[in-house]
């Protein structure tokens, strides 16, 4: 009962000084909003990446020449597919295309069949030469849909026209958003790739426990290749996203520190009126522990309110406005993406981490000022 009454008084006290407290909540919520935006964005991208990798092949084999990724001979494919434990080995044809018109990078894939894990929004996959299917982001960037044409410039700067046979699923799919899928022959022709070469080889493995063994065998068979396992990719993504988000958090933690200094300053510089009020409370029977509890509740209310406001603002910023401030850093400095919508992925752990990261320093910075207020001498009230 006592705790509830003190909490009630804390709320009334905060409300009576609403302008001062609102300014603290505003700055605090802004700081939380920035940190939350970072966490939401990276978590959403990470989840999206993990999801898309679900359908990825267990192994990808790349050829390395002078330390760089090179086109791989198709005969490697046949040899690899004979390794015991390998389900199948297929050459893969894909590459990047820089569209100077929209300043975006697209990923081009040449297929002779369908690719698992992709679903069309409308239309169909390319079935004849000159046709392509595009990701929603590409269509949006080029203002083109099913039935329209899209012109790309090959290495000789000659325009090549493709008819859009279909558009992929919604904008929220990282995998397909910047994709252009065309027939294998069209692809080879467009990029003028030498015959008998592909970009890399995808290998499916029957028993997941054997992936590392088979990667080792491939490496032994063809020392000039680099087999990459799916789990390595997942771990790399995880690490990169964690690293990027951690870096951003570190940078923006300076904002948090600045806020805590502000909080300390506000808490220490309490107005004469507030000091008088505490003196009155002490004079009429409140003890130092009661005042400390009052200050504690005030701190908690401010923290939780700011946390809620900051989280909501971050949610809107990231999932409705597409995080315009943060996106370039988090997604990558070198790769340009067309805009796409993020799928809201939030989990309680993220919110817990954020609450911890923001509430702990705030509470710590107000302990000493709260104590200084709480030890106000009740005698002073008699003297004034």
């Amino acid at each position, binding site marked *: 009962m006592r705790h509830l009454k003190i909490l009630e008084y804390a709320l009334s006290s905060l409300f009576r000084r609403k302008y001062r407290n609102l300014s603290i909540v505003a700055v605090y919520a802004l700081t939380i909003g920035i940190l939350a935006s970072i966490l939401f964005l990276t978590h959403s991208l990470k989840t999206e990446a993990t999801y898309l990798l679900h359908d990825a092949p267990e192994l990808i084999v790349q050829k390395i020449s002078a330390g760089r990724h090179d086109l791989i001979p198709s005969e490697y494919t046949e040899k690899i597919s004979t390794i015991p434990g390998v389900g199948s080995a297929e050459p893969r044809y894909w590459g990047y295309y820089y569209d100077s018109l929209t300043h975006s990078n697209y990923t081009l894939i040449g297929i002779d069949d369908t690719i698992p894990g992709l679903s069309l929004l409308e239309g169909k996959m390319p079935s004849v030469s000159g046709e392509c299917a595009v990701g929603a982001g590409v269509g949006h960037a080029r203002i083109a849909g099913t039935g329209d044409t899209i012109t790309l410039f090959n290495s000789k700067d000659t325009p090549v026209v493709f008819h859009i046979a279909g558009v992929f699923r919604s904008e929220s799919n990282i995998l397909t958003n910047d994709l252009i899928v065309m027939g294998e022959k069209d692809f080879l022709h467009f990029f003028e790739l030498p015959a008998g070469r592909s970009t890399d080889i995808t290998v499916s493995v029957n028993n997941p426990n054997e992936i590392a063994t088979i990667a080792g065998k491939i490496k032994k068979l063809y020392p000039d290749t680099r087999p990459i396992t799916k789990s390595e990719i997942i771990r790399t993504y995880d690490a990169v996203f964690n690293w990027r988000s951690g870096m951003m958090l570190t940078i923006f933690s300076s904002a948090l520190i600045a806020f805590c200094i502000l909080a300390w300053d506000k808490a220490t510089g309490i107005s004469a009126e507030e000091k008088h009020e505490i003196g009155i409370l002490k004079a009429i029977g409140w003890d130092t522990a009661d005042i400390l509890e009052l200050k504690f509740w005030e701190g908690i209310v401010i923290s939780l309110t700011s946390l809620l406001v900051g989280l909501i603002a971050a949610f809107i910023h990231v999932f409705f406005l597409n995080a315009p401030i943060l996106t370039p850093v988090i997604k990558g400095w070198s790769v340009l993406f067309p805009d796409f919508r993020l799928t809201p992925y939030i989990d309680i752990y993220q919110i817990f981490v*954020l609450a911890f990261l923001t509430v702990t320093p705030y509470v710590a910075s107000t302990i000493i000022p709260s104590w200084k207020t709480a030890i106000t001498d009740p005698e002073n009230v008699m003297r004034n």
Partner: protein
Amino acid sequence: MLHPGILALVVGSCIVFVMMLAASWQGLRIIAGWDFDSSSEKQLILERKTYLISSIIKYALGFEIISSLLFIYTVDDIHAMFVGAMCATGSLNANPVGWYALYLKIAVFFTASLWIMLNNLDQKAEDFPLIRPKYTALVFISVLIGLDLFFQMSYFLGLNPEVITSCCGSLFSDTSSGIAGDLSSLSIKPMMALFYFTSVIFIAAALSCLKSSAAFLRYTVSTLSIAFFFVSIASIISFISLYIYEMPTHHCPFDIFQGHYRFIGYPVYISLFCGVFFGMLPGFFQPLKRIVSLRDTIMRAEKRWLVLSILLILFFVIISSWPVVFGDFTMQGY
């Protein structure tokens, strides 16, 4: 190292450690200058400082409890980075120093909670009889928190994703060596018997304490409480977890915090830790009854501690036994 959860843990731990150092320093100054019979300004300031130190310790304890949960969750979250790790156990095995960080957090929970109880008792006496022992003990708690920070940082800095680690399946497996393996390979029936036997004698001893004021009973209850703690942890690993996971080989003590097991880990561990803590108090504070100004306060508080301990331990035993008794899973021939 730049994982958000890790950042939060390290930043929070550093802040708390600094706060504890400040509190210990103030505590030592209080011991040096304390003169209860003086009415000087200086004595008044020292008395007021005791409130500051109490506030700091309460916040530090609150932080340590929450950070223990955050630690387990973070360690679980990063398991994907290690080959072979499927849960928190795997992450901890990737750098065994992590286990020490966890043990230290448990130690800090108990010592800081004990300190807060001691402080509450001291504040109820009119003559602050425990000032010196209290603030000396504070230095010890600060050291523990410092070690916790050190081991946490060593753990996170020493993590190497290249290292292939083993998961709970192999750590807590019947065939592995070490304590964890031994615990997992304990036959279930004897372990169950030990668990229920210990809980019955503990509750019986606690109930007797409510009726009698004998000192030896209180020491017995405290000892049994500590013993029950270790027996319960062993039981969780040995058989309780099996019934919760409904798998005869899944002994991990951390996965029960996860959502797909309906977060059962929280009520289980919270009731165990709090029940054991309150059970420890009567014996720990029995010697303090010699102090005249504390005797009545301790005797009144003792009843509350015993009742709380009995209720919490009963609750713990019931929710741990629920899947054993009412679950669809049965262990036959184990």
